């Protein structure tokens, strides 16, 4: 998808909108025969929390590296704050990066790592020491200022990397799968911390992740990447409720996707559609489908029990598989066995037609 509209679309037509924090215009980058980015255009507004979401090899990291300046595009322009920076090296761009492997300098202490940015920019020793401690306080690590990176845990390294990237007061912070190496609890803790930090500092965040849950919970807008292109760009809710393609429907929140031929048998029209598992009702034996609902029946394959909910996998006669999520509270009596005949129904409104399948 190219030519995404800026979010100021509905703004005051009299005053000129401020330039986007980041703008990509028809940016392309190939590595040999592989098109890592294929004419991608997008605009990221000032102060926005923007996620680049996609599976590995989809082009999201290439996109980030181009914005940081570690790599140059083969085609297109990159603008930061309205200024063309396509040919500007990274050390002259007002963006900073939190790396996936943290990239802390092993021969420097925590404080020296954080003070590195001011140091190479010629800030006096005493002042940059103060700046570093201030930043370490922001991530609550001032007590570890004298340690070396080897003496830190993964979560602590993560915070040091964050402090180091923020010390230069960048306009844009780029985060490359920053929480990928952390365990689940720490990841959730850091997610809310990052979100509140972004809110407080008002910096534009560009966040690369392959974890759709992370993108949905943190970002203001998400660009879903696939094969070097933006498949869909929308708010988290927009992506979840109105996925435009089968890929997005499956990737974001793992919706059921019913391909055109099977769809024809269920809805009467040969158009592929998506339906969220939690919007499918499992009907009690013998009870009729509600008026105006879409209904179908199939054979129960198995039930995955998750406590609060359970996921029912139902094989339809044409061979496609539907997953229905049932709340624990809604189920009464013993669950049917595998192979039992199950009746499913959902409201016609919750069905999302897809562009392709």
């Amino acid at each position, binding site marked *: 998808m190219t030519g995404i509209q800026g979010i100021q679309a509905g703004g005051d037509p009299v005053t000129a909108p401020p330039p986007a924090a980041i703008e990509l215009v028809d940016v392309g980058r190939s590595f040999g025969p592989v098109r890592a980015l294929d004419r991608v255009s997008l605009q990221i507004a000032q102060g926005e929390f923007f996620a680049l979401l996609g599976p590995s090899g989809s082009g999201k990291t290439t996109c980030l590296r181009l914005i940081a300046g570690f790599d140059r595009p083969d085609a297109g322009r990159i603008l930061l704050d309205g200024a063309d920076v396509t040919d500007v090296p990274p*050390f002259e761009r007002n963006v900073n990066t939190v790396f996936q492997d943290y990239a802390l300098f092993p021969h420097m202490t925590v404080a020296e790592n954080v003070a590195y940015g001011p140091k*190479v920019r010629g800030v006096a020793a005493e002042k940059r020491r103060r700046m570093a401690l201030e930043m370490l306080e922001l991530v609550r690590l001032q007590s570890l200022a004298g340690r070396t990176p080897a003496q830190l845990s993964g979560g602590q390294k993560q915070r040091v990397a964050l402090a180091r990237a923020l010390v230069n007061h960048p306009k844009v912070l780029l985060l490359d799968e920053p929480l990928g190496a952390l365990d689940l609890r720490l990841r959730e803790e850091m997610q809310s911390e990052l979100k509140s930090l972004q809110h407080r500092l008002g910096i534009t965040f560009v966040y690369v992740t392959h974890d759709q849950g992370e993108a949905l919970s943190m970002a203001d807008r998400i660009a879903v990447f696939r094969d070097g292109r933006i498949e869909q760009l929308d708010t988290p809710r927009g992506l979840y409720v109105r996925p435009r393609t089968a890929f997005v429907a499956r990737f974001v929140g793992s919706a059921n996707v019913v391909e055109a031929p099977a769809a024809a048998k269920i809805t009467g029209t040969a158009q592929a559609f998506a339906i969220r598992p939690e919007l499918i009702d499992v009907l009690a034996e013998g009870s009729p489908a509600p008026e105006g609902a879409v209904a179908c029946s199939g054979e129960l394959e198995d039930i995955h029990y998750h406590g609060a909910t359970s996921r029912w996998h139902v094989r339809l006669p044409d061979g496609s598989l539907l997953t229905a999520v049932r709340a624990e509270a809604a189920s009464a009596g013993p669950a049917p066995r595998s192979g039992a005949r199950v009746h499913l129904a959902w409201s016609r409104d919750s069905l999302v037609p897809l562009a392709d399948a």
Partner: protein
Amino acid sequence: MLRGLSTFLYGRRGFYLSLLLLPPLLWLGIVYLGSLFALLLQSFYAIDEFTARIVPTFTLATYGQLLSHPANVDIILRTLGMAVAVTLAAAVIAFPIANYMARYAGPRMKALFYVGVMMPMWTSYLVKVYAWRLVLAKQGVLSWFVERLGLAPVLDHALSTPVIGGPTLASSYLGMFIVFVYMWLPFMILPLAAALERVPESLLQASADLGARPGQTFRQVVLPLALPGLAAGSVFTFSLTLGDYIIPSVVGAPGYFIGMMVYQQQGTAGNLPLAAAFSVVPILLIGVYLTLARRMGAFDAL
């Protein structure tokens, strides 16, 4: 039977390890360190000037002889100066090559470079030294090439410089220096490339990202992290130069080097204690060098 042995050894790690380590440790301990110790001991004996026999009583007379003769001190300083110059030159030449090998070369190019760096070591050392004598000779390839480039005045100027110059490259310290640098360069490139390869690309990107120019990144990040490799390589070039006696006797000005003195004193002169005292000098110098390198933090990143 064999199976029983495997089971027996598997359960006894310590026994198994000592079984493996004992023969090489014995070799290293007795043959290597033992002879080194015998050498050290020799240096504390002295030779009887009339009978030319070694008197096995503890004395510092040999060291006195070593340090009281200005000629001997000259030899030590000359050797040390050459070793320092060769080490510095090797480091400067090796760095770009090692950096290319570690960071920019593709897999094929990298293999080619490794083979290329090591290939000279497959040839006999003596053949290379004598080949260099021909290369550096008055009518040799090098002077012909320099002449063709129109740089003959530069070469003449270098050869007329007091200490390093001489009648020809083959009979000057400059020529000797060139041969030394050529000989030991692989020993600098390989550890340096290994050290640079361990520096992740993301560290250089992080440095640039935080505003460091390439020169600053080099000084603040690359150089400190390459220091262990540089230290390892320089120990090779430094100690190999200190101990060599073939290159100074085939190429270069007639001044003596430590290695030549050791060779001469234990051979023709038959003064084993003095030869031993001379060979203690490089050991001490390398000890001092390693201490200094450690002080400067060369091994901190290990």
